[in-house]
């Protein structure tokens, strides 16, 4: 079952927190809503669940308008950051809750609870209480509870944010496996973490300031972002203001060769290059600047180089002989690793 937002606007006391969102999640698709806090992504999810009421626009589930339905009539599975497991019920009672509320037959309830716990690897903990489980285990139970009602749509609201980094990557793989096992379930996955979005999502909707900024597959957004916000939020990026010439752009007195098709010569634009695609030393598309900061990150070194008043980041495989602060170094990048974006905030 797909989800469709049809110019959904949500406001609290005249304060718009979601501004006319148009978005379609196809049946069986994983859509990540990615954005910083306050971007409206959680509000969008809550509008699907029925916990906030849009002031205008419609929410459709599988073609059915559910805007006016109360949450309990929507048939949606939901997993939230703080798990929200019922503390007075055992794990199996938690998972059975939705089935009991729907008056499912006892034998079927038992079977589906067992199946959901099996699927999330929590079968051995069925008789425990939530307080006896670790955070990761509690989140698995919460997922099992949401899956037990066999929803067509699963809403995940920052499901991994309360877990530590190591558990998070494990759970990310689990979620990907669940999605492969349940190919018909559409998932709306709210996160502020671009790694989660890039790993899990079929498509990513980037949100900022209550608006949808961009929507596309992870590769599209990463390789050719449409605007500065998307470029820096998805993957991180060097954004420098340039002036477009005939066969390239000019920046800090240097001529750089990049693809300028579709952009008028003489226009101002923003050059976007991913930090890990920037190399140290001489090469085509050369930038010269002063090293202002060096961070050693184990496998990589990150250099911050100031080029004509703009900070350029370079992620380099661990250097045997890293430059020192204040050294003048040359950086370079390949022409086809750069993207031209419309001029934005980086122009000041």
């Amino acid at each position: 079952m797909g989800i469709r937002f049809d110019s959904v606007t949500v406001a609290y006391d005249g304060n718009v927190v979601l501004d006319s969102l148009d978005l379609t999640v196809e049946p069986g698709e994983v859509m990540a809503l990615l954005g910083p806090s306050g971007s409206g992504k959680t509000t969008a999810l809550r509008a699907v669940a029925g916990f906030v009421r849009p002031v205008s626009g419609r929410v459709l589930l599988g073609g059915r308008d559910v805007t006016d339905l109360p949450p309990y009539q929507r048939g949606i599975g939901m997993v939230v950051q703080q798990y929200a497991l019922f503390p007075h019920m055992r794990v199996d009672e938690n998972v059975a809750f939705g089935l009991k509320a729907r008056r499912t037959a006892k034998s079927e309830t038992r079977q589906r609870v067992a199946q959901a716990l099996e699927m999330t690897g929590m079968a051995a903990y069925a008789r425990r209480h939530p307080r006896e489980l670790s955070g990761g285990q509690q989140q698995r139970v919460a997922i099992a509870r949401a899956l037990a009602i066999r929803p067509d749509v699963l809403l995940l609201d920052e499901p991994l944010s309360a877990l530590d980094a190591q558990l998070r990557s494990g759970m990310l793989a689990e979620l990907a496996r669940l999605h492969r096992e349940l190919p018909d379930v559409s998932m709306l996955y709210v996160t502020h973490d671009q790694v989660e979005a890039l790993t899990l999502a079929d498509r990513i909707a980037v949100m900022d300031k209550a608006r949808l900024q961009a929507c596309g597959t992870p590769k599209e957004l990463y390789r050719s972002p449409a605007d500065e916000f998307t470029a820096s939020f998805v993957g991180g990026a060097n954004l420098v203001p340039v002036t477009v010439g005939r066969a390239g752009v000019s920046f800090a007195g240097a001529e750089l060769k990049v693809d300028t098709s579709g952009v008028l010569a003489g226009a101002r634009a923003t050059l976007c290059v991913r930090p890990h695609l920037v190399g140290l030393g001489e090469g085509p598309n050369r930038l010269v600047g002063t090293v202002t900061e060096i961070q050693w990150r184990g496998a990589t070194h990150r250099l911050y180089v100031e080029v004509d008043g703009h900070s350029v980041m370079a992620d380099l495989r661990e250097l045997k002989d890293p430059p020192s602060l204040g050294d003048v170094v040359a950086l370079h990048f390949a022409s086809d690793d750069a993207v031209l974006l419309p001029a934005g905030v980086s122009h000041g």
Partner: protein
Amino acid sequence: MLVHSRGAKWAVWAVFLLLFVPLFALPLLVVLGASFATHWSSVLPSDLTTANYRAATRGEALQALTTSLLTATGASLLALAVGTWAALAGAALKKRYRRIMDALFVLPVAVPSVVVGLSILVAFSKPPMLLNGTRWIVILAHTVLVTAFAHQSVSAAITRLDPAYEQAAASLGARPSYVLWRVRLPLLLPSLTAAAGLCFALSMGELSATMMLYPPDWTPLPLLIYGATDRGALFTGSAVAVVLMAATLLVLFAVSRVRTRASYR
């Protein structure tokens, strides 16, 4: 503890005992001593006896104890039901209306209880609502007096209740009534039992409003104590007072046992 140095800790304990013992503990110990006495003319009571207790646990006194227990149980259960209902309903109201409702429930506490007793007596002395002369007027008065406390403590607990629980329940397809019985009330249970205990204790000790309206066949224990001391039977009165105290504490202890089992974190 906020105080770290050894000397300061001793000082804090000394101040605590100096304030606590004379104000809270001594009077109760005096009543306990008096309940075993036949005379008390020097420092300590003399001619110790258990006759006071024999008198305090039979006949009129036993009847009054049953009356008090029944009244307090009835009033606290009624207050809990009404207070919880109102608190749940209030939680769904807008802030302005909720304030009005809170004020309404606090009214019987803000007004002197003698006035509450009098107003209930006047209001229910004529048909069609003739309760005067029955036990129900006592239970009603106690209910009115203690509902405020039930309402207040349950309200506070509802505000603290994380809405994530009921939202998770709703998303799983549970109707509001199912969510109420299976999720919200069980999660509120610790506060509900605490509120019930408080109401029970308050009702067990209520005197001033009860005095205005109790019928002869429904005399709660505090009135018996008052009557006994009024006649000058101080030592019998003390024994009855100890019985009242013990019965109340016993019930509170049982309630707190339920509460310990009902708290989840």
